[in-house]
């Protein structure tokens, strides 16, 4: 409204005194009636009793220093077990002398995630952060990376195609020429490589000893599966959601079919298929790393769920937004990237983060196919006969670590919602 109507000399009154301050608040919210007062007292007593029991067990009578399981028995919590086993729980069977490598890989990934959580980084910087971060992470984990020529050529081709599609509207002709050049190099190079003219050549970066994925374990495995699972599933889910709303029947049909198929089976069955059945269909001699297969299964599965969440956001937009973008002459990629997705994604932040949290925990299902993620290594720590009989402590510890990650995501979701709606809130 532009101008307020005149209201004369009436002055605003202060709020009633008995509803402000601590006493006022408690009277209004905790003891507003006899029934509410009794409920409050009973609940406070229950909380105090449970907390007292838990602290007694977890802190006051706990054993932090025992060297074997038998020394631990009889008292409270046996945290000495965690002290003894934490390196195995965090890093699994990774060679013991090299544990600094997964440690720094985890730190790199966390830094990468924290940096990309900042809205000011959501531009070309994001690509740099993820490129550098991923390179360091996998160099530390593997120890040696061989970059084959065909991969470089493929990246050139993909980069050219993506650049051309996304930037076709804005890029000056020199930039467009660069994309065409990249595509040209990629296509010609790949053709020559397939024809056998170019040799099977690769760049070797090998500063450390090689550690294969079957030795990986613990927190880095969980983080890699979740981070890269969701990082790939997110754009893939967006494409699926857009495809499902496409006017082209073939694209729509494929997307609907894929989403329904994936949603119709449990993740475990998909993981088992990836680990047991897929190798049967591959030509003998070719092997795909088990870890990679699990990763792909997670991406496909998460993609289908994310697609449905995003579709909800797309459907919540009024038709007028699409029409206004059309009437201005924006083409489909411009309309989608500038108008539709920024609004649709904003709407679905809470369910999207909910899905992310769900998948972070669901990565623990890979223990079914013998991958040692964080929960699985915690599980294995219980097997030691010297320390038998303290499952509660280990699972509580694992739960605590999972909670830290999930709670951070939940807080971040709240921050993001606030941050993105800053301008649009009245």
């Amino acid at each position, binding site marked *: *409204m*532009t101008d307020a109507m005149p209201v004369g000399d009436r002055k605003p009154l202060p709020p009633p005194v008995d509803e402000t301050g601590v006493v006022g608040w408690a009277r209004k919210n905790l003891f507003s009636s006899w029934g509410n007062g009794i409920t409050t007292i009973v609940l406070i007593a229950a909380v105090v009793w449970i907390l007292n029991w838990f602290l007694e067990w977890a802190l006051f009578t706990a054993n932090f220093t025992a060297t074997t399981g038998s020394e631990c028995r009889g008292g409270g919590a046996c945290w000495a077990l965690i002290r003894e086993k934490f390196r195995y729980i965090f890093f699994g069977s990774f060679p013991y002398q090299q544990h600094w490598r997964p440690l720094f890989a985890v730190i790199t990934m966390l830094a990468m995630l924290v940096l990309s959580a900042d809205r000011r980084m959501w531009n070309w910087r994001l690509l740099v952060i993820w490129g550098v971060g991923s390179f360091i992470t996998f160099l530390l984990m593997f120890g040696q990376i061989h970059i084959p020529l065909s991969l470089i050529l493929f990246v050139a081709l993909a980069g050219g195609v993506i650049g051309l599609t996304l930037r076709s*509207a*804005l890029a000056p002709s020199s930039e467009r020429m660069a994309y065409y050049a990249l595509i040209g190099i990629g296509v010609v190079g790949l053709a020559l490589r397939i024809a056998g003219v170019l040799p099977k050549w690769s760049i070797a970066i090998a500063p450390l000893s090689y550690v294969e994925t079957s030795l990986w374990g613990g927190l880095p495995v969980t983080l890699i599966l979740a981070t890269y699972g969701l990082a790939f599933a997110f754009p893939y889910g967006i494409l699926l959601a857009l495809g499902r709303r496409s006017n082209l029947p073939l694209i729509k049909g494929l997307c609907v079919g894929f989403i329904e198929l994936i949603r119709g089976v449990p993740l475990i069955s998909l993981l088992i298929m990836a680990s047991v059945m897929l190798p049967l269909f591959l030509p003998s001699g070719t092997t795909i790393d088990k870890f990679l297969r699990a990763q792909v299964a997670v991406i496909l599965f998460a993609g289908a769920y994310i697609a449905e969440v995003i579709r909800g956001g797309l459907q919540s937009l*009024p038709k*007028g*937004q699409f*029409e*206004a*973008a*059309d*009437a*201005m*002459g*924006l*083409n489909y990629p*411009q309309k989608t990237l*500038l*108008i539709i997705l*920024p*609004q649709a994604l*904003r709407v679905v932040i809470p369910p999207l983060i909910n899905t992310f949290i769900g998948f972070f925990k669901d990565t623990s299902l890979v223990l079914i196919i013998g991958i040692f993620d964080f929960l699985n290594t915690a599980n294995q720590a219980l097997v030691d006969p010297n320390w038998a009989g303290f499952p509660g402590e280990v699972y509580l510890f694992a739960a605590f670590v999972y909670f830290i990650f999930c709670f951070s995501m939940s807080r971040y979701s709240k921050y993001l919602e606030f941050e993105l709606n800053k*301008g*649009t*809130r*009245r």
Partner: protein
Amino acid sequence: MAATARDLSKAESVIQLKGVNKWYGQFHVLTDINLDVKEGEKIVICGPSGSGKSTLIRCINRLEEHQRGDIVVHGVTLSNDVKNIEAIRREVGMVFQSFNLFPHLTILDNLTLAPIWVKKMPKKEAEEIAMSLLTRVRIPEQALKYPGQLSGGQQQRVAIARALCMRPKIMLFDEPTSALDPEMVKEVLDVMIELAREGMTMLCVTHEMGFARAVADRVIFMDRGEIVEQNEPEEFFANPRNDRTKLFLGQILHNH
């Protein structure tokens, strides 16, 4: 009145509709529409709800697809060719009943979006044009706010400025004042009247008969998907010939 003084017969025709037909399923929304719009002409289209008037102007920039007949805009025939459609949309601006501003962008970004992305205009130039247009619709001080922070009348003026930012040759208005509170109708109509006096070719679906009298060269009455009657505004309001027109005018003028 001012407009009728000009001689439109020599002007070039910029929009031609020849035998246009459209169906929604079994429902025949547009029946044999023939219309020829001259450059600089202002046309007001009125009629009862469901008469197909919005559908008609939405066919001109292909927000709706017609099934029979030809629509030619600035010499370009509308077809399924995306390039043709985009070419026409660059020349034709549109203002909607529900404003349809982009709520996640500031007013300034709403205005500069199409010039930057569709016309590849440098950002600085686009912002200069946008600010001069916001000054023209009398709300330059709102440039950095978001649409949700503006009143309905202000939003609709922003929407008009946004359409003008593309320097269109033709403007389509789809009931631009119907969603506004009564006290805001005038500020939007004033902007539209100013635009008409500057010589813009305009097609307006509206029931604002005062606006029709002030600027229209021609008033078209539609009912059940047909153009029932068209005439200069003076004649149209003084001596409606068709019974349906008389009935409609009786109803809406009675309410005013």
